[in-house]
């Protein structure tokens, strides 16, 4: 439909201008939103109305006359005269749009119906139907996604309930076993001590006899030795064995280190050491840069701006990096390499954790920006737990049976003591201690798991113990819900944050207190959650220095309410081209 453009002859240079929109039946109502039509009606009846903000009044002839009378722009809905004005384009065939007045006749087609460019200088095609179709297709895709996602989510919630119940049951079972095992340990301990006393007595007796024959020096030294042995045996055996067990059977994870109060001071000392060292290095830099080689001096000065520790500089330039790292390592080893050592330690346990991940990843390695997931190692203990739990009745029975036998067969008051039986008791005791400590750590881990917030319907339950990876350029980003987020580059791992909590009503996962950033905050990562059929990590970015952002798709976010909204939106869309 052709528009009567008489009022706009000032602007309109071309009389051939055709506006495709049928919505605007009059220039006077150019840019007016449907909900405002009532407001402008007053103008037709009385000829004068107040600006919406009440500041002034304007007349019919001042409406869209390309001069701003109302500060809020209400007299100029269709022109750029008022800085605060808003222009409505109906965009039939697509969604309506409200524009800033700055977009009107600025040479850029903002409305798909082209109604924002009417001065004849710019011709805009009406692209609404095409754009609308794309949007509608997208919307339908979304709806399909949500429909499937909602079903998966439901299933997951049920699974989560079962898993949680299973874990709870397991926990109480384990607690029960712990109780019994504690009893056994106690019995074995008493038994063992009695045997040891008897053995000791017997030995002392024998020794006395021997001593009389041998020289004093010899006997003295022997006595000393045995004393030592006894002492070692008597030192809180539970603790000792606990440590040993942890080392033998459970590769220590970062978590374990942090949990273990005995380890903590070491950690702190190490950190303190490292920072002290850094401090000294900084100090050296101010005073002793003269002693650096020319290259090191360049790096040192440059690092002031980049903030990179010099051994991290130019990580993107391989040739420089290689040369340089070699030299730095040499340097560090020659002097004192606290820095490097700390880093390496740090890397070691991360590597342990990630071995499986790397293996899983091999297939994807060629892919540049890939996303993948796996279960993480440190909570391998959880897997192990499951495995052992299945077989637990047998070992538990076995141990009970064995102990019974031992207790019956071995008579500590018998002299001389049956050496092999005594050995048996000791072995059984040690085994029981080991089992007990494992049991304890299982209980503690399970308790910790169950202490997490898995969402109002436990919909995030299945994410526990899993990690999700996204490879972006040279970095591999890894998000492990309820645990941590990291960034890996080659063999170096940077901790982007430890699990903190959900935010924005379970729409965001927050990982905070990651590795420290030079001159910046401690690293943190916010993973925004979106509905998706699989759990996948995408779009990891660092919008601000050391503050990372990522997107994680998960069925847990495929909410029924949201599906309803999308369906309603689709219902509002024009279904046929004829509607235009």
């Amino acid at each position, binding site marked *: 439909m052709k528009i009567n453009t008489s009022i706009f002859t000032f602007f309109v240079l071309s009389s051939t201008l055709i506006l495709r929109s049928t919505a605007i039946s009059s220039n006077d109502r150019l840019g007016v939103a449907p909900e405002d039509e009532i407001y402008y009606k007053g103008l037709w009846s009385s000829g004068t109305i107040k600006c919406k903000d009440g500041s002034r009044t304007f007349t019919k002839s001042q409406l869209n006359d390309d*001069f701003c009378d109302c500060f809020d722009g209400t007299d100029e809905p269709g022109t750029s005269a008022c800085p605060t004005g808003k222009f409505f384009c109906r965009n039939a065939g697509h969604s309506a749009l409200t524009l800033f007045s700055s977009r009107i006749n*600025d040479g850029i087609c903002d409305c798909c119906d082209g109604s924002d460019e009417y001065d004849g200088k710019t011709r805009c095609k009406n692209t609404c139907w095409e754009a609308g179709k794309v949007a509608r297709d997208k919307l339908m895709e979304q709806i399909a996604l949500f429909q499937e996602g909602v079903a998966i989510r439901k299933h997951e919630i049920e699974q989560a309930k079962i898993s949680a119940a299973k874990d709870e049951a397991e926990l109480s079972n384990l607690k029960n076993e712990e109780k019994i095992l504690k009893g056994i340990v106690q019995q074995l301990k008493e038994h063992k001590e009695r045997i040891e006393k008897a053995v000791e007595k017997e030995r002392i007796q024998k020794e006395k006899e021997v001593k009389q024959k041998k020289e004093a020096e010899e006997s003295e030294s022997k006595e000393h030795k045995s004393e030592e042995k006894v002492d070692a045996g008597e030192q809180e055996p539970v603790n000792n064995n606990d440590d040993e067990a942890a080392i033998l059977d459970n590769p220590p994870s970062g978590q374990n280190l942090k949990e273990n109060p005995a380890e903590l001071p070491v950690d702190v000392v190490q950190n303190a050491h490292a920072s002290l060292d850094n401090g000294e290095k900084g100090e050296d830099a101010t005073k002793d840069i003269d002693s650096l080689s020319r290259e090191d001096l*360049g790096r040192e000065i440059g690092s002031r701006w980049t903030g990179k520790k010099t051994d991290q500089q130019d990580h993107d330039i391989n040739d420089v990096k290689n040369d340089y790292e070699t030299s730095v390592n040499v340097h560090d080893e020659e002097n004192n390499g606290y820095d490097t050592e700390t880093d390496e330690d740090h890397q070691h346990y991360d590597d342990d954790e990630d071995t499986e991940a790397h293996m899983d990843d091999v297939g994807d390695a060629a892919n540049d920006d890939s996303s993948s997931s796996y279960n993480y190692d440190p909570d391998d203990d959880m897997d192990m737990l499951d495995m052992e739990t299945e077989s637990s009745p047998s070992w538990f029975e076995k141990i009970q049976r064995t102990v019974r036998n031992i207790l019956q067969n071995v008579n500590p008051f018998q002299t001389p003591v049956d050496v092999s039986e005594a050995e048996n008791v000791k072995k059984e005791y040690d085994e029981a201690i080991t089992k007990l400590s494992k049991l304890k750590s299982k209980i503690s881990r399970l308790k910790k798991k169950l202490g997490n917030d898995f969402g109002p319907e436990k919909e995030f339950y299945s994410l526990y113990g899993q990690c999700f990876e996204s490879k972006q350029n040279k970095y591999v980003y890894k998000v492990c819900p309820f645990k941590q987020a990291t960034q890996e580059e080659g063999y170096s791992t940077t901790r982007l944050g430890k699990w903190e909590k959900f935010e924005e009503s379970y729409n965001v996962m927050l990982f905070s207190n990651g590795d420290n950033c030079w001159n910046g905050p401690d690293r943190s990562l916010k993973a925004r959650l979106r509905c998706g059929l699989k759990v996948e990590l995408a779009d990891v970015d660092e919008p601000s220095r050391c503050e990372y952002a990522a997107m994680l798709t998960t069925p847990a976010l495929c909410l029924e309410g949201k599906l309803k909204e999308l369906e309603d939106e689709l219902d509002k869309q024009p279904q046929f081209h004829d509607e235009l």
Partner: protein
Amino acid sequence: MEVIAPDVDLFFLNFPFLFDQPKSQVRLINHKYTIIPSSKSVYSSVAFQSSYDHSTDRSTMKSIVVFHHFLFLLLFLSHLNSISSWKKEEFRNCNQTPFCERARSRKPQHCKLIATDVTIHDGDLTAKLITPDKFQDENSTNPLILSLSVYQNGILRMKIDEDPSHNPPKKRFQVPDVILPEFESNKLWLQRYTNDGDSFIVYLFDGYEAVVTSDPLEVFVREQSSGKRVLSFNSHGLFDFEQLRVKKEGDEWEERFRSHTDSRPFGPQSISFDVSFHGADFVYGIPEHATSLALKPTNGPGVEHSEPYRLFNLDVFEYLHESPFGLYGSIPFMLSHGKSHGTSGFFWLNAAEMQIDVLGSGWDAENSILLPSDEKRIDTLWMSEAGIVDAFFFIGPKPKDVMKQYASVTGTSAMPQLFSTGYHQCRWNYRDEEDVKNVDSKFDEYDIPYDVLWLDIEHTDGKRYFTWDKVLFPNPEGMQKDLASRGRRMVTIVDPHIKRDDNYHIHKEASKNGYYVKDASGKDFDGWCWPGSSSYIDMVNPEIRSWWGDKFAYTEYVGSTPSLYIWNDMNEPSVFNGPEVTMPRDALHYGNIEHRELHNAYGYYFHMATSEGILKREGGTDRPFVLSRAFFPGTQRYGTVWTGDNIAEWEHLRVSVPMILTLGLTGITFSGADVGGFFGNPDTELLVRWYQVAAYLPFFRGHAHHDTKRREPWLFGERNTELMSDAIRVRYTFLPYFYTLFREANVTGVPVARPLWMEFPHDEATFNNDEAFMVGNGLLVQGVYTKRAKDVTVYLPKDHTWYDLKSGTAYKGGKTQKMEVTDADIPVFQRSGTIIPRKDRFRRSTVQMENDPYTLVIAVDSSGAAEGELYIDDGKSYEFRQGAYIHRRFIFSNGKLTSVNLAPSSSHGTKFLSDCTIERIILLGYSAKPKSARIKPSNHAADIELGPLQIRSGIRSSALTIRKPNVGVSDDWTIQLL
């Protein structure tokens, strides 16, 4: 204080501050501990803080020191990765700089030279400077040649060099390509001189004459009638010229600084002399220093030990405000202003390291110097490591005369592209194409105008300039075209250090062709910068500049498009492992020029080469935009500069104003400071205040270090987004005025942002005001430089009425007003008697504003009159040189506004046409109450009603407004109020 080691000392001064910090902040504070303004001993000048307290109890101090060791320990334990701050010990002070130390220790009347053989030669007055027999000793030297030339409009040029007929071992370096080629045509060929006993006199200009006295040697400019001096040279006999000589056995010529050795193969060759500014209340100029506008004395009674003002282009990490140490650029041009004479200027064209002392009055009390004592005078001592004396005396006497005189020697500012006068958004770094897209779209989402998005070093493939990181920027053309579709440009960084990588085409060509600066042994100089091991293009050679310029061709710079412009950083040059983070002085340039001789001009040649390249790629039709950090006299012809790596602190906001004003005084008007401060995170209030001030300064760019938090204007909550976007929008509304002022600068050399005294040279209260400034002659801007300010004091110059830009309230000048301020804006006033053109509509960028109508704001003076100008051209090409522009003068008097054409009626060449109209005329201070206006020649009427000064909610309609006069901006017309 000497018992305390410097670092500890700094802590002492700052610890009360530290003590109150929660742990998380200690790191930050510590990181910057040496730059906290109260650190008196941060640099050895206590001159600026004369009230130093010497009475501190020593034992107290010791205990504090102990406490400090403890603090140190604590700080190291708090995850401290690096101590970073300005490291004064890494830079030479005057005492560590032998030529400076020697010059400073000389006593007045040291110079024994006398002028003989005075004659006129080639239109110049020449003389031989010789040492009389009675002062000859075994170190006696050859005569020097002095020549004086006179140029149009009050310029005296004096050269002193060695006499070539005595075959000095090396020709001293004279800086090429700075003086405008056409300047020579302004030379007035002297025919004769007057001989008055011992004095030789030539006529200069407009009642001024130049005098050379023979014994003692002195050169000065004076008023002919009164005999009052304006400028004088060697009045205190401090002139010294170390002549080049052959090395004798036993001569120790090497100089060492820290781990660096300067081989100095040509030995001492420094020059020093005194210059007196007569009738001066203050001296200004000699950028770049982060100091006040009026230069404080650096030597003399009452001045504690201070360094001289140093001119040596340096990349200074986290520089201090209030420091005479050298920064990124150097312009050896000083101006004086005073009540009795007015303004004068002295410019020494010399590119070697320079140190300048401003001597406090009475500095020479011990020596009886026979100078007229009935006038105010400021004496200065100039010292340079090498080169010749090539000095220009500018007689003024009005401030703008000196601007014009200096500009006639070194050129006026290039006419900028219109887009570059808008807002620029920069950050180290916008990461990738997606980041660029997001930032760009956010500006539209919040309806904030901006014109240019910048990419710092990380966009390149491993800091190889002219390349792109293929992963982060796979489609640079597409990205630029997308920005350009909304009228926006992009700027990428190109630095002078070239990565020594045989697979890098620039390096391959440069090394093959021998285009690099050489080290003292003649090999390509190899220094360390962003890419690691790097060499530096020798830009002094015009052939190499031309080669470099060709690299900007679209075919050579793959991924560049016509909407891409350039940023030259690190061109001091910055060499991370060089002495004082720059190039060794014994490095060699084209023509066997030692780096020491041209150091301060290196960045200038690089800027020039880049600018010429950008000009070349479009066949000379598109005005270049190139931002440079280093600068030298003449830089204004090639582009824009900014004040380098400043800090997000209130004091840095404050000092940015005098720094930019000083650049304007010395020819470089298109300059700015990083909005928000480069290092550190500004608190939101500081950031908002920074935007509010910077919106009125010529170059307007937000920038930040990569360790800082993101700080684009929409990241600080709705209210602050509004405040920052308001500041940016105000800038855009004033762009027609700014552009007109840029044109004025382009024609006359008068800067866009001006110290108050330039506009009010008789109002003494303005002479050392550097908190407020003028934009053109019409707007007075007073920054707010303190946190949570409820009010600020503003001095409004006398004999004028000042209209508050927002309320229209009139203030009488000649008083210091205490103004209430809110967070919404800073005090800005329009001077009575001016007419300012604006465009009040909002757009995405300057491109979409092209056809928007104008608003004129008329502030009438006491006689009801006002005047203003408007200049318009296509905003990008050079067609204005052929007369393709609109230049109008608006004159308002007796209730009638007239638009008069100022553009010459070009019979040849192209015309620039505009359909733009004037949609609104606002009248301030007009006492009558007209109801309508009659417009001629169209003879239609326009309504007059009360309207707002700016269209914003909450502003009263208090100003007389002519509604829709709709007269064409390029037409002659009159509007009569009825």
